[in-house]
């Protein structure tokens, strides 16, 4: 029998041998270089697809989705992540490997897409403020807890504007993911963060004024 050499060495074509893969952190220059940009972008998109598939497999919400829907999300997230990476190339500082840095875009985007999908059919009433479960152990602690709960309800009812109240209940009480609410409203996460921040300042000030919190910490935040 003829002796067989290791496949990895025998099958390596001379062309491939002459063109080793570029250094991993050569990505930025390849993505900017007119000659290599197209190929590098295609490779980046493949990387984003792998990251998106990895992330969706990790998320419990992702496992509940059908194969077709998962693939749809994977491709949407990979497209979006690729665009994000390309538009932020100038911000890559080389403190980690490029692939590690880029991977995070796909992870984040996939998580957003999966949460959006999971909440797509769910109702978000934004009105109902359910009865909180008290973890107080004794009568005194229970009384204090009830008192603070009542004060918080009053603050939510009176210190916030209608829309602030709806946003605060959705995000803080119902646990609606902020990107889901932003999408429904046709707005952005940053706009909702701003409203949430304003609502927290108002609630804290109201509770402080009425003596439920010891000291005001938000004066500098009120403008």
């Amino acid at each position, binding site marked *: 029998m003829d002796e067989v050499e290791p496949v990895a060495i025998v099958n390596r074509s001379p062309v491939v041998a002459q063109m080793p893969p570029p250094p991993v952190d050569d990505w930025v220059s390849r993505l900017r270089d007119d000659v290599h*940009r197209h190929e590098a972008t295609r490779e980046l998109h493949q990387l984003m697809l792998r990251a998106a598939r990895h992330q969706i497999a990790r998320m419990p919400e992702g496992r509940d989705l059908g194969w077709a829907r998962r693939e749809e999300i994977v491709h949407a997230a990979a497209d979006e992540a690729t665009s994000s990476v*390309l538009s932020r190339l100038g911000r890559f500082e080389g403190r980690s490997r490029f692939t590690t840095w880029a991977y995070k875009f796909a992870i984040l985007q996939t998580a957003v897409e999966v949460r959006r999908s999971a909440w*797509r059919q769910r109702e*978000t009433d934004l009105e109902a403020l359910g009865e909180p479960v008290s973890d107080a152990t004794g009568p005194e602690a229970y009384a204090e807890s009830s008192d603070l709960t009542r004060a918080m309800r009053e603050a939510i009812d009176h210190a916030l504007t*209608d*829309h602030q109240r709806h946003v605060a209940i959705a995000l803080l009480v119902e646990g609606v993911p902020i990107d889901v609410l932003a999408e429904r*409203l*046709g707005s952005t996460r940053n706009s909702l963060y701003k409203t949430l921040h304003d609502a927290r300042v108002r609630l804290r000030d109201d509770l402080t004024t009425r003596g439920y919190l010891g000291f005001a910490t938000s004066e500098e935040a009120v403008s």
Partner: protein
Amino acid sequence: MGSNSLYGIPERRRPRPSPEVVRWRMRRLTDAGFDASLAAGLAVDGDVDLHALLNLVDRGCPPHLAARIMGSRVADVGVGSHG
């Protein structure tokens, strides 16, 4: 399908809201004082930023004016009847 002119990557636009989301958006608007026809027009347009719209109403802006400030063409249709 549209594509990114530089890299041939498919563009993503804000999708048309699903019927459930349209109903949800419409309820948010009518609760805030928008009349039904204006609310219906704004609810179906996923590019209308309800958050900005409702913030304006929170500050005392009349709903129809808020819609016009936000550049909604829906609001212009009934401009005669709303002054």
